[in-house]
């Protein structure tokens, strides 16, 4: 089962290694990991997507909580949550296919952010299914490269950020 954890950490040297190291050491796989600052100075938020059954993920949460630099762990899969990920796709684009590509991009509310003689770079955001869908469609034209940010997420009603509530 795919699950997503939001982990608030102190923004200190080595904290990413501590978190990532914990996963590899205990044999848990990370699907994606995104890190960024929060509104609180000195506190970063990691959004970690992982695969595992209930017991495994519970063990991950407990082990994460044991890290001194980890301030809070929330399992977002148990709450109503908004997920987003940003993807950049460099796709082959000849003059005759450009408008077709353009149309797909518009349908997915993406953006063309760069054009060259025989390629385009497209930016899309969305959840997993949406990104997979546009990728599948663009494969038809030939994808040159893909870069993804990994998922980020926020609870719909409550927020765990900085405990301002």
């Amino acid at each position, binding site marked *: 089962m795919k699950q997503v954890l939001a982990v608030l950490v*102190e923004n200190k*040297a*080595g904290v990413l*290694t*501590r978190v990532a*190291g*914990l996963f590899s*050491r205990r044999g848990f796989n990370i699907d994606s990991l995104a890190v960024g600052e929060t509104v609180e100075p000195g506190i970063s938020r990691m959004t970690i997507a992982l695969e595992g059954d209930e*017991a495994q993920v*519970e*063990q991950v949460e*407990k*082990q994460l*909580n*044991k*890290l*001194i*630099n*980890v*301030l809070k762990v929330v399992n977002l899969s148990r709450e109503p949550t908004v997920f987003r990920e940003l993807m950049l796709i460099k796709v082959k684009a000849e003059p005759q296919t450009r408008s077709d590509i353009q149309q797909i991009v518009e349908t997915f509310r993406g953006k063309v952010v760069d054009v060259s003689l025989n390629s385009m770079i497209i930016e899309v955001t969305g959840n997993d299914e949406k990104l997979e869908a546009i990728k599948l469609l663009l494969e038809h034209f030939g994808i040159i490269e893909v870069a993804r940010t990994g998922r980020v997420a926020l609870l719909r009603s409550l927020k765990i950020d900085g405990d301002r509530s």
Partner: protein
Amino acid sequence: MKGSQIIITALEQENVEVVFGYPGGAVLPLYDALYHSKLRHILTRHEQGAAHAADGYARSSGKPGVVFATSGPGATNLVTGIANAQMDSVPMVLITGQVVTRLIGTDAFQEADITGITLPITKHNYLVKNAGDLSRVIAEAFHLATTGRPGPVLIDIPKDVFEQEAEFSYQKTPDITGYKPTYEGHQGQVSRAARAIAAAKKPVVFAGGGIIRSGAYRELQELVERGQIPITLSLMGLGAFPGSDSLFLGMAGMHGTVAANYALMEADLILAAGVRFDDRVTGKLESFAPGAKIIHIDIDPAEIGKNVAVDIPIVGDLKRVLASLLARFKSPETGTWVRQVQEWCNRYPLSVREEEPESKIKPQYVIKEIYRLTGGEAIIATDVGQHQMWTAQHYRFDRPRTFLTSGGLGTMGYGLPAALGAATASPGRDVWCIAGDGGIQMNIQELVTAVNYCLPVKIAIMNNGYLGMVRQWQEMFYEGRYACTELAGNPDFVKVAEAFGATGLRATRCSEVAAVLETAADTRGPVLIDFQIDREENVYPMVAPNYPLSEIIFEGKGRGK
């Protein structure tokens, strides 16, 4: 104040009496500050020795062990000792020197990324780049090492930071945002546990090292006695409950007693207190305690549900949780059950051997004689192997903090330095090290340390000329192919002892054992005894790895039940 002075002053604030260590280039300023202080320093002959000595000091006294080592190889030599302490939850603070700040990351001479290396084997670690952070970091390190689930904390300090000037402002037991151990058990859960115990017909208490770390012996004893509940201990728990009490079933697990293992398998309720259900104790996990409801109390939430599914989890400090459990305690009706387990105890005692004076020395007999000689009052450190299991089985540990053994990591070479640490912590106490002929050679250099500091440890080598425990597995599971387990060319241990300035003794016949032990006890200073034991003696009973606890291999290779 200079960084190095801040450290020494901070250690004094923490009432540190002794530091175990080994100097080098990167810690020169620290040792210079130490030179001017009243702190005692024990110079070992290897950093691993220093780490294990600090560990033995901590386990025997309950106070944190403190270690100094230099950068690079000094720091990496600590690694086994740190991992060992982490696995067994031993409070230690280790201070290592590092290359100067501007050289970090350049593969400078004697540079090793020791915070990176020890990340998975410390409770927490720090690299301090400003002397201004030293006061806070040291206070945090002691707080982390000694509270919650204890463990080793490493502080890596570049040489120039020792020399930097900064203010000393020390606040003991600091508030650390991301660290809030739970001490009080959830009262609702405690009530549920009390009800479950009252309703049980076949309850067993299964307690471990957590009882010792928490100091919950009295509460444990009261609970067992009021409830008349049979109790077994993990290896790490030995001493947490009096070994000669009639409700004590002996150790559980791979080399546990039949009664203890049968009791766990037949129980309808297990009160697990400060244990982590290691594979050496559960046997085949899926078959463990099939009929038991499990109450699990531990200060580390991650231990609960990690290996075994738990019915009533309680996170908290054992001393407090057991006290609140006692406040609601109703004794179960255990008469029939106690008669049942006592019948197992009588039917399956640990192998007792009739000793013929001229017969070969049986190691179990030596252990029993050491118990008799010391009145069970000694601190016993062991190494790892068969002799460790014989000690666990046959020395009846009646008091907490008297059994120092490497449980989680199983570190050969632990015994001698750990004994030295205990002797440092408790002058005047009998300290014995029971070692194998293999393991003693892993840190034999520490005999000098014993001699230099007049630490009167008595070392009993169970010399079988083998890496005995591995040989036993080869005998049992590899059709007797003894690949690389015979210790050919062992030195003459008596001469080794003498060369180091200690006393060396030897016994080869059963009739000599008692006398040689007495001579050792009456001899001042460190004594090493070479007991040449029956070479192919095995440890029984045994549950083969990943077999159910009920499938016990008895002496003579029969498999029971």
